């Protein structure tokens, strides 16, 4: 619908007694902010009035639709108001997803640029950031969506992912400002975004695929339960211990504090205290970060760093929640070759999933259906005991190597298990 930026006279006037109750109180109020903004943008007044009706009737007035910018199969979340007659400016009121700089870092120049473009073409409302990892810009009709998208792209921005595609990647602040970071999260995020930009912009999967990236097990990017493929920082070999600072810490806090908060909390009981020294059984340390968080001055991740890659988390629709599980226990991520290994792995997993998945099947659901063993074999990944919590409990197993010949008689009787060389699987890459 036509924008009416300069004709403030048509502002229908706000009537929002319920929303007004969200103006008081100490937490910053989006209602006050949007009210103020509605002086400039009349459609925002309509938005607030419609929201008020939602509050009054506990009912929603948006319908979803599909809209795409030329060359893209996603990135616009298109909404039509059910109350367009009453609120003509909301008839088309879409959100554009914009890929933010990795780690959500901005220069004010960039952020102002984003706000200016969104104000120029649409309602100008920004949400920083959506849980999907995008910067969200609200309030464009069809025409202004296209215009805004062009101007955004002309200014170095790109649209985010939506639909059955790779979604915008998200990472923690990592090495830019965190001493815990075990690899370069921002670089990895930008690299993967750009490498797989085709998959992000032009959906072709059965369903969405999210990659989120955290510099260590603390998972500030919420990757473990919020993405199909968390890439998590970790290390090999011993962690770094500064025994002098350990002694200082013990002197300051007392030995009981250390026992209660560090020693007894280690999930594998692999850390112990001897006098004023800490001993870590590095072979059994599972890199959970707990002791490092508590004694962050004395302890640090080890020096030989890399990532653990997991796979499969999603929220509850349809088969119930799945959690990510380990798919690559350790991978270095420094050199170009390392990054090639990573994309090679992703390519193989996507290929197997895409060739065999069903419509609307997330990769976690797919693995749950076919079994992790089958999945690994399909992707040419060697099984590794670090991928499981325990071996199986069900004794009903199809041992391919031990199965007798087919009834068709193609396969002859196999040699007895104890006479045979164990078969090693070649990776199919």
């Amino acid at each position, binding site marked *: 619908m036509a924008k009416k930026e300069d004709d403030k006279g048509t502002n229908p006037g706000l009537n929002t007694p319920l929303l007004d109750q969200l103006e008081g109180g100490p937490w910053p109020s989006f209602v006050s902010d949007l009210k103020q903004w509605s002086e400039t943008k009349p459609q925002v007044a309509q938005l607030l009035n419609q929201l008020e009706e939602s509050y009054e009737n506990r009912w929603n007035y948006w319908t979803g639709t*599909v809209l795409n910018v030329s060359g893209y*199969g996603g990135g616009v979340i298109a909404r039509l108001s059910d109350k367009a007659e009453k609120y003509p400016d909301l008839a088309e009121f879409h959100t554009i997803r914009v890929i933010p700089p990795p780690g959500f870092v901005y220069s004010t120049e960039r952020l102002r640029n984003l706000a200016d473009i969104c104000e120029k073409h649409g309602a100008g409302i920004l949400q920083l950031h959506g849980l*999907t990892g995008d910067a969200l810009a609200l309030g464009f009709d069809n025409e202004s969506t296209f215009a805004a998208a062009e101007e955004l792209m002309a200014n170095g921005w790109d649209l985010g992912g939506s639909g059955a595609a790779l979604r915008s990647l998200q990472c923690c602040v990592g090495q830019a400002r965190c001493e815990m970071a075990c690899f370069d999260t921002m670089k990895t995020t930008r690299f993967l975004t750009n490498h797989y930009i085709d998959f992000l912009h032009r959906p*072709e999967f059965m369903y969405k695929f999210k990659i989120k990236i955290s510099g260590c097990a603390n998972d500030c990017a919420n990757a473990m339960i919020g993405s199909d493929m968390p890439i998590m920082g970790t290390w090999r070999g011993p962690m770094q211990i500064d025994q002098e600072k350990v002694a200082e810490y013990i002197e300051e806090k007392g030995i009981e504090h250390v026992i209660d908060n560090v020693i007894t909390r280690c999930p594998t009981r692999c850390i112990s205290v001897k006098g004023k020294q800490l001993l870590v059984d590095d072979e059994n340390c599972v890199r959970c970060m707990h002791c490092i968080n508590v004694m962050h001055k004395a302890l640090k991740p080890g020096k030989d760093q890399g990532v653990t890659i997991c796979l499969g988390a999603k929220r509850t629709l349809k088969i119930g929640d799945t959690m990510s599980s380990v798919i690559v226990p350790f991978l270095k991520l420094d050199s170009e070759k390392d990054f090639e290994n990573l994309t090679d792995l992703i390519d193989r997993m996507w290929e197997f999933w895409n060739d065999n998945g069903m419509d609307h099947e997330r990769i976690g659901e797919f693995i749950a259906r076919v079994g992790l063993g089958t999945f690994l074999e399909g992707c040419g990944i060697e099984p590794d005991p670090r991928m499981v919590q325990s071996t199986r409990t069900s004794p009903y197993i199809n041992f391919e190597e031990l199965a007798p010949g087919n009834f068709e008689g193609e396969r002859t009787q196999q040699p007895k298990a104890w006479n045979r060389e164990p078969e090693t699987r070649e990776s199919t890459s």
Partner: protein
Amino acid sequence: MSIEVNGKVIEIDEEGYLVDREDWSEDVSEAIANRDGIDLKDEHMGLVDYFRDYYEEHQVHPTMHVLVQRLGGKIGEKFHEHKEYEKFLYMLFPTDPVSELCKLAGLPKPLPSEHDG
């Protein structure tokens, strides 16, 4: 809204989807394509036919996944390279090939369920 094809008035919605799917003919396809600024060639028409056949059989339209898997097949060594077929589709239909093909084939407009989240 409506368009006129061979002297017959055919109702379409704002975006150009047929209101009554029975109205479809190749000429209607062509008229809708013109409206969207697409010059229909054999490649386009072949895909429109594929969409109609697929819908006839499954009562759902083919997703991009289906197109890339079944029509594109394996191109190149790496999974990455099979994007070529999709790029080709975007060349034919720069704005959302699947929606556009549904429109040209006289199928229902795809719903946003696959587009959000």
